[in-house]
């Protein structure tokens, strides 16, 4: 990932003979159309820059807030093996947040500004993390369904037109696959366990199914950003296309587990060659997005508390670095 600091060496001069912004925009779109990658110092329309800043920073915030629901179970993991795996997974989410913040910074926003937007509540993050993790099975359901849905969303972004975002996504997708498999393994172990364990797995599926389906965002008819994002090759598939793909691969997995997906309308449609689902409760989606989910307040409070508690560490490190620098400059 290149960086914002690199960009301060100078604004790129406008290409010769391409004076008007319409000509620049047309040349930009031509580069996108032939699958050329856009890099930090390339000219780009302001709307492209702002769209990417919004999307990448929301994505980064999601990784950071996403550590909370699972972190809730680290001290109560049932075995040492599960505990080691869960710590590694949560650490990965933190790492993914770092890759993504770095990618967003190449567009000219500072890390501090993005953190500020998250903590003030101005920025959004994935609505899924505003649901509570009530049992150990939720850790399995999150890995299987939430990470499964995330992978489905993220794989096409590996080919995003913006180079730093695409490269960050390649790294993330490589690491994400273990997350989903460890989640499915937890579900499988519970599903093959005692009656109480099977009930716990079913209860987790019950609560996580619909929020996972909603992770793909509003239906295409209501998605205001989709068309432009597709033209810019930030997005490669529509929300509904990705949602359908996820449903088609996940239903057989639930059947293998012997668990029931909480949707009486769910059925295989022979003509469409797809599993079709019942209506999605978009009121719930919009309510959670607007801050009225079960854990919105708790999540933000946890992030703010962590930020405040870490303040003295950041200040001490900066003071130490300044002192070291002045010692070096005074040395004979």
């Amino acid at each position, binding site marked *: *990932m*290149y*960086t*914002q*600091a*690199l960009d*301060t*060496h*100078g604004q*790129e*001069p406008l*290409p010769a003979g391409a004076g008007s912004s319409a000509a620049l925009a047309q040349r930009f779109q031509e580069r996108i159309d032939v699958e050329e990658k856009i*890099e930090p*110092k*390339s000219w780009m329309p302001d709307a492209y820059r702002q769209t990417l800043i919004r999307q990448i920073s929301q994505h980064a915030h999601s990784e950071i807030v996403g550590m909370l629901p699972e972190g809730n179970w680290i001290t109560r993991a049932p075995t040492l093996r599960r505990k080691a795996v869960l710590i*590694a997974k949560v*650490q*990965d989410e933190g*790492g993914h947040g*770092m*890759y993504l913040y*770095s990618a967003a*910074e190449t567009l000219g926003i*500072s*890390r*501090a*500004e993005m953190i*500020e937007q998250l903590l003030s509540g101005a920025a959004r993050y994935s609505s899924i993390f505003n649901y509570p993790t009530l049992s150990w099975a939720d850790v399995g359901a999150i890995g299987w369904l939430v990470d499964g849905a995330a992978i489905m969303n993220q794989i096409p972004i590996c080919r995003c037109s913006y180079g730093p975002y695409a490269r*960050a996504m390649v*790294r993330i997708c490589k*690491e994400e696959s273990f997350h989903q498999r460890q989640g499915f393994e937890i579900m499988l172990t519970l599903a093959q366990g005692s009656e109480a364990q099977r009930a716990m797995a079913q209860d987790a599926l019950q609560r996580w199914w619909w929020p996972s389906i909603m992770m793909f965002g509003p239906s295409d008819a209501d998605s205001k950003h989709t068309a432009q994002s597709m033209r810019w090759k930030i997005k490669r598939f529509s929300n509904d296309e990705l949602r359908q793909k996820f449903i088609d691969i996940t239903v057989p997995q639930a059947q293998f587990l012997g668990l029931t997906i909480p949707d009486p309308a769910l059925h295989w449609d022979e003509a469409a060659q797809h599993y079709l689902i019942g209506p999605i409760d978009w009121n719930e989606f919009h309510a959670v997005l607007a801050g009225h989910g079960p854990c919105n307040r708790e999540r933000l409070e946890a992030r703010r508390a962590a930020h405040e508690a870490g*303040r003295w560490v*950041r200040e001490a*490190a*900066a003071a*130490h*670095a300044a002192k*070291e*620098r002045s010692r070096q400059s005074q040395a004979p």
Partner: protein
Amino acid sequence: MSSDWPLFEVFIRSRSGLEHKHVGSVHAADARMAIEHARDVYTRRQEGVSLWVVRSVDIVASDPEEADALFEPARDKVYRHPTFYAIPEEVKNL
């Protein structure tokens, strides 16, 4: 709003004998912390045996708009590649 620690670019040597390659960046108060952060962020799966960190402000990059002027002159000099020269098949070891 608090200000960020300086930015460092991170380079990893993935195996002994290979060159260091750019992988991303980290914020850190000083170079030593940058190495530690780079270890945590970029080498959780044995991605490397050696790390370099360089302050991002110390890197000078070529301008994409000058790419043609810089790199185009090499395009028509195919005679710099061995495959440009036709050698009879019976001649060996060339």
